[in-house]
Every structure is written in structure tokens, then in C-alpha cells.
């Protein structure tokens, strides 16, 4: 009864879940199909840092025997998943892409990992990432670079580039990424995936190795909008272990995706952000990217949406504010890596004193980008500079929240009260804001490693939603020079459902026009090359 391997790894996660639930395929076969692909492809692709085939097969076999025994199983039982290596997994190596955590096997599970375990998904492995999620190309991984399945000479985005490459390359049906300034959306855009950064506080951060606590959010990376919504529902919702977790039910996400896929957006008001690639703000944006985005917006208008341009002036300040806030918090979050309790310890020879051992450990254990940000953050928080840098950046953050609030026509800025309206309701603002997800398509490996400012510019469009804590999704909207382009859709806090609805409408319309799913273009291309 087992289906051919290629067919299984070509399925969406939602399709796999249905086949598994119906008993039409065995979890062991699905898992083996993916493990085979990982074994064959990942040597070149570099998507994974850790894969334990025996453990994955054992989990799959358990699901199969539970199903055979008639045990009630959840809808995702037996569906494989990959986790970004920033997610702490009990007994499974977790490095956050850093040498300083090499060999560390955590004694506990992140809430996200625990929820996926409880849903009986099968953990394929831990995916590569920029060290401590600091980067936009995954080239800052201490272990290996990851390649873009669309063009192995190009980067897969970052910092969740291992997850994006794994899903786009058919080495996982879907994956968990984390997003601090765009680390889910940007790699999703550059590899032709759907990636969603949830409302801050709606997915637990417990067990995510912190980069910037006030910005970090875990979220889904998937081949379709529906898959992303389903995975989001599996990991989201209140967690008492995270103080910043919002004690409110998740909006209905998968259902919103299905509703959006029917293609009717009448009454939905869409704002195109001028400051993100619009008139007078197009410098640094590739024409091909802007063209695809414009076409997508036109398509949405054709589905009944009202489209208008919206100005958010404070967005121009997002990059500067982000590169003060994130490094400041990181400089503190990364202080615990001192070689005393776990992970790497360098120079403890009985001669050197404690300070020397700590310094040597951090010198050897951290890569250059991490050090750069620790130094930057330490400086920004120093007495005498705090107000000018960190304090000022927080003010900019408030201004950005105000711009969102004004655009959405809500009085409250950012917080939970800011959202909650149905996409059909509203008070004069727009329901969602759209922009390119990234200014450019995937750039070649090595192109920006020596130019941090150019690298930081990759996050230009994704930073405002991060700083305001509002949800944002990236959905593919075509190719430029044969490489994927993403459209970003931003919504008020707790209105993640709007992102899924609008994204699903766009996806369905494009799939119809194309007669195929977006990623099928990649499969067709690699298939042709193979021939």
C-alpha cells in the first residue's frame, strides 16, 4: 500500500495528514521517504545540522502501531516536521548554529517542540541557521552554509535558512522557523515558501534560545498557506511558562485560509505601504521584485479588495531602531554562555583564572557577527549612552506602532486591543498592509558577507512588523530572474487570520492562473535538469 517516495515528498503536509489519518499511507513510509531524500540531497544542500534517522523512524513506527491498535490520534500524527536549531529539544543536540553550544543536549523541550511531540509529529531533524539567529543568509552558521534549492549558488535567506531550504527542497514537508526581524519571512520569500511571523506573544517563546526577547517569535514555514495555518494552530496559544504569552484564544487560522482560497476578497481594504518600495522609496529594490508585487496587488484588487496607498513615515527609521534594540537585548541574552555550566569551555587548564576562561570561551565560541552585535549592544546599553541609543530606539518603536495603528484605524498601538476586528469590519483604516517581503531576490553566497550594512538591508521590509509585534506573512508572488519573490501581508495584533485569508486568496488565484502550485515550478525545473 505504500506510495512511491517521490509522490509522498511532493505532497503538502495537509494532504499527508489526511492520508495518514485515513490509513492510506504509513507514517514509517512517509518518514523513510523524507529520510531518503535527506540522505541523498542534504550533503549538497546543507539544510540540517542534526538528523537522527533511527529516532525519527522509531517515532513513526510508534504512530503506526498506535493507529493499528485503534488509539485515538490527533490529525497531525505521523507527519514529519523539521525544527530550526534554535528550538530546544530534550536529549537532541541544540546549538543555535553556534560552536559555543556544540554537543549540548538540553534536558527539556521548548513549548513549541513539546506541542509538536504531543501532536505525534515526527521530528526529522534540526535545521541550520545563522548563529543565534543573527543574519539574513545562513552564512553565519558556525557549521556550514545552506544553499538555495532554486539556485545552489545563492543563499536560502536567513536566519531560518535551513528550514526554508529543507521545505523548498523537499527535505521536510514543513518546518518551524523563528523571526526576530524577518528570519521566517525573508527566507520564505527567497525560497518560494509561505512563512508567517505570528503576533508577538501568540506562540510561546519558552525554549527558543533567545536572540532579542522583545522581538523573537516562532512560526510556520510551509509550501502552502493552508499548511502554514495548520502548523501555526498546532504550536500557538497561551503558555503559562512565557510571561509575554497572550492569554487569549488563537484566531481561527486554517479556516481563514480555506475561506480565503475561495477567492472572494470583496470588502477587504488593503494598504500598500509607500515607504516599503513605493514612490520615492524604491532605491535598493529590484524592479523585478516591485513588478511582481504590483501584479500581486492588482490580482488582489481583481478579487474584490479595495486597494490604496498608505504612508507610514516612521518605517524609515525601523532599520536603525532594530539594530540598537536587537543587539542590546542579545548582548544580555548571550551573557549566559560563559563556559561555566554547559557547552564549550576553553582554556580551563588549572592555570588560568575564571575571567580568562570565560573570555577565551566566548572568543572561541562566538562567530564574528555575534561578537559584532554583542559589542554593539553592550555599547548601546552603557551608562551615559543608554538614553541616546536604546531609549531613543524604543521611542522609534512606539512611533512605528502608531503608524500601524493609524493605518489600521485602531486607537490602540500594537497591543492586543489593537486588533480583533473582523477583516470585514473596521473604522476607516485598512484591514491589512502589503509590501515586498524583501527588496531583492536571493543573492549569491558570499555577496554580502563582508558588508554587514548590505546584509542588514535584506530585512528592510520585515522590520516594522517585528518592532510593532504585529503579525505578517510572506506568500510567493512570482519569479524574478527565475527566483522567487514574496509578498508581505501585515495585520493588526491578534488578527493573524487576516494574513492567512488574504495570502490564501492570492495563492489560489495564482495557482489557478499557473495551473500548478508555486513550488511545482521548482520541482519541474530540477526534474528537467535531472533529465
Amino acid at each position, binding site marked *: 500500500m505504500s506510495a512511491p517516495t517521490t509522490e509522498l515528498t511532493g505532497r503538502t503536509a495537509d494532504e499527508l495528514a489526511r492520508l495518514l489519518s485515513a490509513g492510506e499511507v504509513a507514517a514509517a513510509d512517509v518518514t523513510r521517504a523524507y529520510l531518503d531524500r535527506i540522505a541523498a540531497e542534504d550533503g549538497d544542500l546543507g539544510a540540517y545540522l542534526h538528523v537522527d534517522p533511527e529516532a525519527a523512524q522509531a517515532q513513526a513506527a510508534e504512530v503506526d502501531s498506535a493507529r493499528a491498535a485503534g488509539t485515538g490520534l490527533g490529525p497531525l500524527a505521523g507527519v514529519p516536521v523539521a525544527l530550526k536549531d534554535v528550538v*530546544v529539544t530534550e536529549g537532541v543536540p541544540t546549538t543555535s548554529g553556534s560552536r559555543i553550544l556544540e554537543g*549540548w543536549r538540553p534536558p527539556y523541550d521548548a513549548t513549541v517542540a513539546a506541542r509538536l511531540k504531543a501532536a505525534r509529529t515526527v521530528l526529522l531533524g534540526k535545521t541550520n541557521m545563522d548563529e543565534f539567529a543573527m543574519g539574513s543568509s545562513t552564512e553565519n552558521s558556525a557549521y556550514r552554509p545552506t544553499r538555495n534549492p532554486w539556485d545552489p549558488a545563492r543563499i536560502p535567506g536567513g536566519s531560518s535558512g535551513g528550514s526554508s531550504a529543507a521545505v523548498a527542497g523537499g527535505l521536510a514537508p514543513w518546518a518551524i522557523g523563528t523571526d526576530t526581524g524577518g528570519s521566517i519571512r525573508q527566507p520564505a520569500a527567497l525560497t518560494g515558501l509561505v512563512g508567517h511571523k505570528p503576533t508577538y506573544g501568540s506562540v510561546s517563546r519558552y525554549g527558543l534560545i533567545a536572540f532579542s526577547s522583545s522581538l523573537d517569535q516562532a512560526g510556520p514555514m510551509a509550501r502552502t498557506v493552508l499548511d502554514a495555518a495548520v502548523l501555526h494552530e498546532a504550536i500557538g496559544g497561551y503558555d503559562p511558562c*512565557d510571561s509575554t504569552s497572550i492569554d487569549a484564544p488563537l484566531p481561527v487560522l486554517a479556516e481563514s485560509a480555506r475561506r480565503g482560497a475561495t477567492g472572494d476578497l470583496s470588502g477587504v481594504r488593503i494598504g500598500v505601504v509607500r515607504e516599503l518600495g513605493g514612490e520615492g522609496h524604491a532605491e535598493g529594490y529590484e524592479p523585478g521584485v516591485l513588478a511582481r508585487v504590483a501584479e500581486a496587488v492588482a490580482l488582489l484588487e481583481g478579487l474584490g479588495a479595495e486597494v490604496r496607498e498608505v504612508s507610514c513615515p516612521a518605517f524609515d527609521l525601523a532599520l536603525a531602531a532594530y539594530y540598537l534594540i536587537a543587539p542590546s537585548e542579545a548582548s544580555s541574552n548571550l*551573557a549566559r*554562555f560563559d563556559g561555566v555550566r554547559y557547552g564549550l569551555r576553553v582554556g580551563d587548564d588549572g592555570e588560568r583564572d575564571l575571567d580568562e576562561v570565560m573570555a577565551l570561551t566566548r572568543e572561541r565560541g562566538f562567530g564574528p557577527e555575534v561578537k559584532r552585535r554583542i559589542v554593539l549592544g*553592550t555599547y548601546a546599553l552603557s*551608562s551615559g549612552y543608554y538614553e541616546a541609543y536604546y531609549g531613543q530606539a524604543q521611542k522609534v518603536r512606539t512611533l512605528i506602532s502608531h503608524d500601524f495603528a493609524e493605518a489600521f484605524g485602531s486607537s490602540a498601538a500594537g497591543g492586543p486591543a489593537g486588533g480583533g476586528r473582523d477583516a470585514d469590519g473596521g473604522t476607516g483604516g485598512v484591514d491589512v498592509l502589503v509590501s515586498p517581503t524583501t527588496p531583492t531576490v536571493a543573492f549569491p553566497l558570499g555577496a554580502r558577507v563582508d558588508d554587514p550594512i548590505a546584509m542588514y538591508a535584506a530585512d528592510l521590509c520585515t522590520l516594522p512588523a517585528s518592532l510593532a509585534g504585529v503579525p505578517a506573512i510572506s506568500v510567493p508572488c512570482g519569479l524574478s530572474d527565475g527566483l522567487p519573490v514574496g509578498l508581505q501581508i501585515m495585520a493588526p495584533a491578534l488578527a493573524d487570520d487576516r494574513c492567512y485569508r488574504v495570502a490564501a486568496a492570492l495563492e489560489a488565484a495564482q495557482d489557478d492562473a499557473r495551473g500548478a502550485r508555486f513550488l511545482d515550478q521548482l520541482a519541474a525545473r530540477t526534474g528537467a535538469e535531472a533529465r
Partner: protein
Amino acid sequence: MTTTAGDRLVAYDELLTRYEPVIGLETHVELGTASKMFCGCATTFGAEPNTQTCPVCLGLPGSLPVANAAAIEATVRIGLALGCRIASWCRFARKNYFYPDIPKGFQTSQYDEPLCTAGHLDVEVDGETYRVEIERVHLEEDTGKNLHVGGATGRIHGADHSLVDYNRAGIPLVEIVTRPIPGTGAKAPEVARAYVTELRDILLALGVSEVRMEQGNLRSDVNTSLAPIGDLEWGTRTETKNVNSLRSVERAVRFEMRRQAAVLDAGRRVLQETRHFHEDTGTTSAGRSKEEATDYRYFPEPDLVPISPDPEWVEKLAAALPELPAARRARLRQEWGLSPTEMSWIANAGALGLVDETVAAGATPGDARKWWLGELARRANDAGVELAGLAISPRQVAELTRLVAEGTVNDQLARQALDGVLAGEGDPAQVVQARGLAVMGESDELVAAVEAAIAGAPDVVEKVRGGKVQALGALVGAVMKATRGKADAATVRRMLEQRVL
């Protein structure tokens, strides 16, 4: 541990003729909550090292804090008891520095937004009241404990290696900071001690901490500065860290005053620095210099949501505060009819609660006070323990006073009964019974002893009958001697008078 070379000291009385002190105290109190500040770990004292830990208090990557509501409530109650303003909105902050006993590389504390501000505490020394202004009361987490192995000092310098116990890491810690306290003059050491004593009693009354100073539940950093009398500016202060007994607080201030006076006399300047206090010698020695102090890079803790106490809840807590020590003292003083000075003796001896409970168990205030400040204080002093550490309960003391009042024992016998109680022989009545300590009534034995005394001293009898009544004392003494003190002297005298006169 020796003091720094060149620590000359000026005699205390002499320095007071030239200098005026300003003191200040920062007191850390470990709260007695069942679980830690930011995780569910137990807080039991003395557990095996590193058995009361979890990913959160070990600061493992990915772990996150959740604030302990009971600790926040306790801090608000402390603030209310000290007359503080309770913030309507405040945040935790990260205090960043590297040390192995802080597992996260920062301590979660409060910085410019403390939970409680602007309170005060009145303390009394020798009948005079000193108002201590409280600048702030904030909540933070305790650090782990370092154990430096090898080396002579037990400090990290010179140690072979160090061990860290994280059981204490994350225990809720309240820091109570005074404003500088000027104007205490010669009484500065005693005011410092009285302040910590009063604070301890308040914490006990609130039930928020066990305040076992010997377990480090309460530790004070004592700031001391000296300036020439009449100077408008205060002197440079030193901060003597982790002084953990009431007596040491007093000694630390006194020592620093004497040391700083010598420094100033020599025309040198006092260094702004932290100093360590040495219990054995009563001296301080230089620690880290503040002038090369770490920049803690405080910023609001992004992993915790702000605290915004509901004003109605705060009002309820204020209304439900227990009777505080000062009010209690005033009430008891009235009830017991004591002078302020008499009352302060009781308070300073740490006997207030004991006397109160003894009175509640049936003793008169006078008897209770006499026993606790007299015989029992002596016993405690001899044994080197606090009054409360004696193996006798207020109820047993009350029973002892009753036995005396009823005439069952006299004072001397009562002291013997006390020996028995302290030796664990049971309640006073049991001891009196078992040891046969009861005063003799007009028993046959006593009649025999009286008659024997009369028969044995006809010359004395003659004198008495001749009008020298005071000679009867010799006969009383003889009877008391014969009965080994068990007879009641007044009874014996009456019996003798009946027979001789």
C-alpha cells in the same frame, strides 16, 4: 583575616569631638515563599547542593521567567508596612555582569522603577526617636552560592577551584534601601542596629520571611561616612557588605567611624569602596573599589510583563496588615504600665514577644518581665544563645511564676526548677515534683526542725525572750539550713515566734 595595613583607629569618644557620621543601610531579605521568584523550584534551606534547580533558575538557554505572585504581594506588604508609596506600574530590569553564581549573566532586579518608594521607619534608641527615611523597596532574585575550595581565605583569590550551588539562585529577595541618615552623632552604631532590629520585627510580624540572620535570610550593606563637624558636605562613604547579625551591624559602623577618622586625621581621603566585615575581629577590610565599578547596563527585562498592582488590591492589603511592632509596643506598654525606658529594655533584649506570650499564658507583666530580663537573660548570655533559643517556652515561664506566687516554691527553688526545665526534665511543676523542690508547709518534718532549733540554742531563745527579737534570725537560718532551703522563711519565722515568744 587581617585588616589592611595602616588601619589605625581613633578612639570613639575622641572622634566624636571632631567628626559627624552619616549612615545608610541596604538590607536584603530572602522571602519565605514556597517557590522561587521566577520558577517553581522549592526554597528549602540546607538541601543537597543543586537539587532545587530547573532550566529556569539554572538559566539554561531558552528558559523564561514567570514572576511569583506571592513574592510581589509580600513586597507590597513590606512597602505598606514602611509607609511607602506603591507604584501603579513598574518593571523588572536586568543587571548585567559576569559571575558564576548568576546563571544568566544578569540578575533580574529592579532599577529606576521600584515597586515601593518614599517610606519611613521610626526607631528608638535610649528613649529618643530617629526617623529613617526609606528610599525604595524592590524585588529581585538571589544569586547562587560560590564555594571557593583551597586557598587561605575562602575567597576566590587564591582558591584552587570553585563550586557553585544554585539552590539559592532565584530565591525572591527584597532590597530595602534607606536614604542617608544624618544627625545620629554618637548613636550612629546603635541607630543602625535599632533600624535593622525594627525591620526584622516588622518582617516577622508580616510573616513574609523567617528572618534567620544566621542562615543569611537578612543581610545588610552598611554605608558609613564621616565629615568634620559643621561641614556642609557629607564625607565619602564606604559600603560594608553582607553584615549578617544585629551586633555586627553596630560593630561595623563603629569600626568604620574609628578607621575613617584616622584616615581623615592623617590628611588622607576616604576611598569610596566596598569593604568586608570580619565577625571574629570586628574589623573591616577593603574590597572592590567603587571607582572602577562595573557598568551594570540596566535595561527593562523584556521577558517579564510590567507589574501594575490594582489600587483596590493594594488597599485591601493595607487594611489587612497585622499590628506592627511599634503599635504593639505602645499598646503593651500601656497595658503593662511601663515607662518608655522599661519598654525599650524589653524590646532591645528581643524579649517583647516572649514577655507578651508569657503574660498571655497567665503571668503578671511584672513577673514575666523580671524572669525574661533577669534570670533567663543571664542563662541565655551564659549559653551564648538568643532568648528565644532557650529551651523553655513562655507557657513554662508563666507556670514558674505561678508556682512562686502560690508559695509552692520560693525564688531560689524556682531557679532550681528552671535548671530542670532547661535540662529537658519537663514542665516546672513536674520538675518541682520530681526533684522534691516544693516549699515545706507546717509539716511534721518542719515542726521537728523548728523544735530542734529551739532546743539546740537555749542562749538565743533567752536573748529573744529578753527583748532582742532580731536574734530570732539565727534560729530561722538554722531551720533553713536543716531543711536545705526548702522551707519558706516567713513560715519558719512565724512558727518560731509562736513557740518562743
